[in-house]
Structures are given as C-alpha cells and as structure tokens.
C-alpha cells in the first residue's frame, strides 16, 4: 500500500510538468541570452544537449521515467534551474532539518497536549472551563494555518513588535550548540511553532473530546464506575487507553494536511525550511526544484504514515493478540 502510494505520487510528479507546454531548457537558455551573452548556433545546440543530459530529458519518455524513478528512490533529484548549478539535493537537504524539527516537535506536542485536554474536556463536559476549551478549539480549528500565521505576524510582529519578522536565527550566528544560538533559535522559531501548535491543538482537542464523550457511555466504563473505581483510574486506564488507538490512526491521516500547512506557515514567517524553498521554486519556475520538493513530500509523508501504521499493533492488544477463544 505504501509502495503504491509513493509510486503514484512520484508518477504524478513526473507527468505533470510534462503536460505543461513549457520547455525548461528554452527557459534557461533564454535567460542566458537575455543577459546579453551571445551564442552562435553551434554553441546553442551543444549547450542544449548538455542541459538535456543534465536534466534527464534525453531519450524516450519511458527511459526518462525510469531514470527519474530510480534516481528519486536514492534521493537524487537533479539540478535546480533557479540556483543553477546547485543540485536540488543540496538545497533540499539544507532546508529539510529545519522543517523536520519544526514539524516533529509541534506535531508531537500538540498531539499529546491536545489529547490530554480533550480527555478532560470530554469527561467533565459540563464544567464551564470545558466549554471554554471547546469553543477555543472550534474557533481555531477551521482557520487555515497561514491565516493564523498572518494574524500572528500582524499582532506580534507588526503591532506589538515582539517577535522578528523573518529568519530562524539572528544574522551572523553560526550553527552551534551554544546557549546564545539556541535562545536565538527558539526566539525566531517561536511564532511558526506556535501557529502550527495551536491549529493542530484545536483538532486534537475536538476529536479527543468526541471520542471521550462516546467512550464514557460504553458499558465497560459504566461498569468501572459501578465498581467504585477512582476517577483517576477510569480516566487513564479505561478511557484514555481506548481513545488513543483511533487517535493514532487519525494521526496518519492528518499527516499530509499538517505537512502542507507547515510548508505554508514557514513561507509566511520566512523560516528557512522547505516552505521558503518552495516559494523560491515557484517564483522562478524551477521545475526540478518543485519536482524534488514534491517528490520528497510524498515520500516523507507516506513513510511517516507507514511507520505509525507499523507501530500501531503494538498498542492495540486486539490486533497484537490473536483470538484464543477460551
């Protein structure tokens, strides 16, 4: 299933640009000539040939397709047009750690926190504070990531001038583990992280609350109450454990959405992750960079989903243990 998804995504990646009647080689060459350089016809053809080779556009469609796939699996995506002649790989791999760290931490924290809050809000659903949290989640969840990002930028960067408008670290800092660097890092990443965290939080709170509300009506939960079990035990062992299972499944499905949202948010905050890269690729019509980023996204999201799917049985005894039927 995983393989098919990745394959399908990559195939779409491959075919889409070819459907559009823009020839990248011509674009590059015209850019060169536009600068004023003069090329005689021979040089032109020679350059064209080299570029064709470099960009893997030689040969029939099938050959191109297979070479694309084989390279993509290894992780090589060719050469960028915009920042020619840097390799797309380098660009992506430089930006990737930023994106991954942002994404991983915010997703993890919002999932954990959201589930806990959702549990409490669902079980004590008549208390006032529960209704407050619920309203908060309802107000926050539908807002697209970038809208919230823009709101934050507006409020915090522009009006209140608390946070910086761009970058992920101060100018001139080198990557190191010194305290200064780390605090600058946190300072700059705070807003994008907060944006992602809050929007995701809304969803986890809402879905966990719904699960908790349903579970509270289950017979085994009522039986636990009949037994006079402490609320603490009921919440943690009876409700939480059973609600977490579908939440894990939800996580896999939500990954692609979260990823997309993160990319846009990075763009707005000028965070040097894939978001920035994407914008650069878009504005300079750098097809290969685009293809690279998209292919990587497909692979990354599918892989994470796969990993979670594989881990899931460890948590659900109904799958882990076969029916013995004593």
């Amino acid at each position, binding site marked *: 299933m995983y393989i098919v998804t990745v394959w399908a995504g990559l195939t779409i990646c491959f075919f889409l640009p070819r459907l559009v009647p823009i020839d990248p080689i011509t674009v590059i060459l015209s850019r060169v000539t536009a600068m004023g350089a003069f090329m005689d016809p021979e040089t032109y053809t020679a350059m064209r040939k080299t570029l064709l080779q470099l960009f893997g556009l030689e040969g029939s469609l099938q050959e191109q397709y297979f070479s694309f796939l084989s390279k993509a699996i290894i992780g090589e995506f060719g050469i960028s047009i915009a920042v020619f002649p840097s390799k797309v790989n380098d660009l992506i791999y430089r930006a990737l750690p930023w994106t991954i760290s942002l994404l991983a931490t915010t997703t993890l924290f919002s999932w954990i926190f959201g589930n806990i809050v959702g549990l409490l809000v669902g079980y004590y659903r008549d208390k006032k504070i529960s209704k407050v949290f619920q309203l908060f989640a309802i107000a926050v969840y539908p807002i697209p990531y970038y809208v919230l990002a823009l709101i934050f930028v507006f409020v915090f960067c522009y009006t209140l001038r608390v946070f910086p408008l761009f970058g992920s670290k101060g100018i001139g800092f080198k990557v190191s583990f010194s305290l200064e660097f780390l605090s600058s890092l946190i300072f700059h990443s705070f807003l994008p992280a907060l944006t992602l965290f809050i929007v995701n939080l809304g969803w986890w709170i809402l879905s966990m609350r719904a699960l908790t509300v349903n579970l509270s009506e*289950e*017979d*085994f939960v*009522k*039986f*636990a109450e*009949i*037994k*006079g*079990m*402490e609320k603490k*035990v009921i919440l943690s*062992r*009876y409700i939480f*454990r*059973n609600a977490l*299972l579908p939440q894990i499944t939800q996580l896999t499905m939500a990954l692609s959405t979260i990823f997309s949202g993160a990319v846009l948010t990075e763009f707005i905050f000028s965070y040097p992750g894939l978001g920035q890269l994407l914008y650069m690729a878009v504005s300079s019509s750098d097809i290969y960079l685009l293809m690279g980023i998209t292919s990587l996204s497909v692979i990354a999201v599918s892989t994470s989903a796969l990993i979670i799917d594989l881990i899931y049985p460890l948590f*659900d*005894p*109904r799958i882990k*243990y*076969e*029916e*013995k*039927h*004593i």
Partner: protein
Amino acid sequence: MSENPVIEVENIRAYYETRYGDVKAVDNVSFSVKLNEIFGICGESGCGKSTLIKVLYGIIEFPLKLVSGRISINIDGKSFLLKDNKDVNTIRKLWWKEISYIPQASMNLLNPTVKIKDQFMEIFRKMNKKITRSEAEKIMQKSFDVLGLPKEVLSSYPHQLSGGMRQRVVIAMATIHNPKIVYADEPTTALDVVVQRGILEMIVELQKKLNNTFVIVTHDMGIHYQISDRIMVMYAGKVCEIGKTYEIFQKPIHPYTKLLIESLPRLGDKSERKSIKGEPPNLLSPPKGCRFHVRCPYAAQKCAKEEPSLLEILHGRYVACFNPLS
C-alpha cells in the same frame, strides 16, 4: 423467619423525569430480602425491575429520582438508610465492598485494552492499597481454581474469551471481595442454553460458599425456577406476588403470575403455549385501579376502580389482587 432482613424496602417510588411528565417506573414497592438466600425478581420488560435494582444499589442519577419511601440495608449489625437522593453517598461507600452489582449489559463489561489479571488488580488495590502483586495473584489463582476457571484466562485480554467465559469473569469480579449482597440484572442474556446452565450453577455454588444474598433480576421464569429461593413478580411498576419459588410455581395466586408460568415450555406438555394478550400500560399515565386489569382474564368491576394492596395471604406469601385464584 425472624431474622433481621438484609434489605428492607418500604413504599419505594422512583420516577424518571421526562419533558412529558414523570414515568412511574417503580410505584410503591415494598418487600424484604433475607440473608443467605437467592431472591428473584421477575416480570416483563418495562415492569420496573431494572430500575428497582439501580435504586437498591444507589445509582440514582438524572433523570431517575427517588420520590418517596425508604430502603435500609442491614449488614453485620450496621444499618444504611436510603431515603432521598442525597443518601446515595452513604450507599456509595459500600460499592464493591459489602455490595456489588452486575449490570444488564452486552458482552462489553470488561476493558478491552487491559489484561484480565490487571483488571482484578485494580479491585485489589482499591480494597487494600498495600497489597503486593504476588499476594494478589495468589488470591486470584486460588479463587479461579475454586470457581473452576482456567488459569490462562488471567493473562488474556477480554476479546480472547468467549461470551460465557467473559460473563464468568465478571461474576468472579463481583464476588472476589466477599460481598454480602450481589445484585445481578439478566446475568445470562445472549448466552446459549448450555452456557447459561453453567453460569447458573456457578451462581448457586458461589452463594453457598459465601453464605450471602443474591438478588437476580430476569424475565426468564425458567431461571427463577432453577435457582431462586423466593421470587417477587412485578408488573408495570407494582408488586403482584411474593413467595417461595416452589410454592408459587405449584400454585400461583395472582392471575399474572399464573400466565407468566404458563408461557414457559414444559417437557411432555404438548398443549399450546399461551402468550398474554395486549401490552404493558404506559407508565406516564397508568390506568386507574389495578394496573393489570386491562389484560386480566379474571378482572372484576372493582379491579378497574381501586388499586389492590399487597397483603400477606398465607405465611410468607404476599399477593396484591382483588380476585386471587385459590
């Protein structure tokens, strides 16, 4: 018998509040249960027996309310009184200590993600916080031996057990702390006849060993015939007849009791089984006079105007009827 009854119920009225009015589920019910007996409560669906059990156990939450009457539970010389909705807290202290309750439920009373022995562990921890795992496990093993349950059940998950086994585990859970009163609502629904017999045997054995009181609620007269010492017949929230099982089956006095018994199949008797015509009355506005008079084949004029009260016709035999059969 001049023993102090373990449960004494006096003129209990328990209604459900709905927007159309009060549903009079239990309307002026009085009876008493002795120590060391199996007391059966029978009647059609909707006669109020499940509600009565909930009230006895102390599960009185909206929309159920205790309107009038009193219940006293007498254990080891101490009395616990239930007169209004606030007294529920006194009874709550007895939950899973002196009394326990097996609700009418599907096969869903056990937490699907926790092993059986851990679920027992929860009960032990509640009884005695300092108990060690090994001590608890010893007790579990011993009682499982006594009850005739295979040891592998302990380290299984609920979904690995058959329906009958799960019910046995639930009964074990409800009796492991030696309660003085065990309430069981339809303990064998949805189980096939063979398994049912095993469960009933288990209950009888348990009662003998623990020397306590079981209150069994079921519409199935066959079950009462097999295990109940005394039974109480209810109809539309009222008591029709109370007495020793054998005597009642030999010679039922209340017309409804007679019809109930006649609807049971009997070996060798090839005559048609009669079902009782009509339906139970609407408890929002029950009919005037005796509640059964509409369907009663022996109804007289008086039955439509006045309500019969529960009278001790013979020693230990109570009937509420103007036109009893004898």
